[in-house]
């Protein structure tokens, strides 16, 4: 691997791996380790949303990081990481004409389609062991997508007509992640920054609390200081949600 980084203890690369998060957790890797998979066969989104990835065309990795953070604010790590990945992607693009935005809580949307996602796992955050397994997936040079995903997912290549070096993106992400790490002490500031790059109030969405619940229509009303989403439901009430999935209605 070309990744040489003073912040990291170890970089582990696999040609093929079921899931970088799973490997990192099962092997209880030390903080500041990065696990990369050239081809991730069982990349996971939230629960059973599988992350579709072509071999060696995308960037799928897990950063193992010990972070001191209050359990009730630990989800801020995802918002922080979303800003970092967003910035790294924005930075590598050939020009500023691409519409790139964050979707609650931490998807990265390019020209209306998902280009990157983040899923963080942790062992008991209420205990002293505060090790987080931050899983990041970015569609980089993938050309083909299965039919059912074409409307929802894209890659940097498909939207910009440029090929990118996944290693360069990884290096940018890690540089930023460590550079601004102290921001994690200021969760509300993170949310303020995140808000600048996300879909504003007034956007119509469909919302699903979790896999097993029905989909409801709502309008984004805003986000609270710690990232919970406020939705105006069809009866006009404001609901606050801490988990769930939003999709846009165009």
């Amino acid at each position, binding site marked *: 691997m070309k990744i040489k980084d003073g912040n990291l203890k170890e970089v582990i690369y696999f040609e093929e791996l079921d899931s970088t998060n799973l490997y990192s957790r099962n092997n209880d890797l030390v903080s500041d380790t990065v696990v990369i998979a050239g081809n991730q066969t069982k990349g*996971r989104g*939230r*629960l*059973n949303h599988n992350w579709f990835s072509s071999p060696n065309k995308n960037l799928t990795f897990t950063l193992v990081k010990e972070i001191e953070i*209050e*359990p*009730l*604010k*630990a*989800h801020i*790590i*995802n*918002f922080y990481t979303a800003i970092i990945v967003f910035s790294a992607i924005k930075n590598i693009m050939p020009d500023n004409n691409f519409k790139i935005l964050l979707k*609650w*809580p*931490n998807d990265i949307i390019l020209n209306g389609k998902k280009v990157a996602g*983040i*899923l*963080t*796992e*942790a*062992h*008991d*955050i*209420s*205990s002293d062991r505060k090790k987080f397994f931050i899983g990041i997936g970015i569609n980089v040079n993938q050309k083909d997508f299965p039919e059912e995903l074409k409307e929802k997912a894209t890659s940097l290549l498909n939207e910009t007509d440029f090929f990118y070096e996944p290693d360069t993106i990884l290096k940018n992400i890690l540089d930023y992640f460590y550079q601004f790490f102290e921001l994690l002490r200021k969760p509300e500031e993170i949310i303020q920054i995140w808000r600048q790059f996300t879909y504003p109030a007034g956007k119509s969405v469909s919302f699903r*609390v*979790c*896999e*097993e*619940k029905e989909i409801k229509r709502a309008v984004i009303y805003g986000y*609270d200081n*710690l*990232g*919970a989403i*406020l939705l105006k439901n069809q009866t006009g*009430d*404001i*609901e*606050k*949600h*801490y*988990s*769930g999935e939003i999709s846009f209605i165009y």
Partner: protein
Amino acid sequence: MDLNYLKKIIKMLDESNLAEIEIEEEGTKLKLSKPRPKIVSPAYPMQYSSHTFQESLQKPVVAADEKKESKPQVEAIPANVVEIKSPMVGTFYSAPSPDADSYVNVGSTIKEGSTICIIEAMKLMNEIESEVSGKVIKILVENAQAVEYDQPLFLIEKL
């Protein structure tokens, strides 16, 4: 008005919710009142952020999930039974993925530190570990249910 009568009245006032009793009888006027409890201002300053945050978490604008009212009422818990509570607001998942088996079931024997469920909030999947070794005697929430901060999730009988 004899002393015994007065004692009775005092006892009545003491045991009642009344703050004051006034009796007028055969030209004698008697007025008894209880000392009012002092109102103490909160000991912590209002800007104590983690408190206000927890409060805001516990008071959603409206119930975000219909199942919220099914929050179980836990009766007195025997000394050998431990309640495991949610460390955060989020969604309770009983298994690592929808097609996988639950981490635990009623009757499962578990060890201290073993994972018993996941609470997810904003794509942070937090594996909750058991604080004790024992037997699961009750699961107080359903899979995919929204849970509050500090809401009891499991009852574990220590072994």
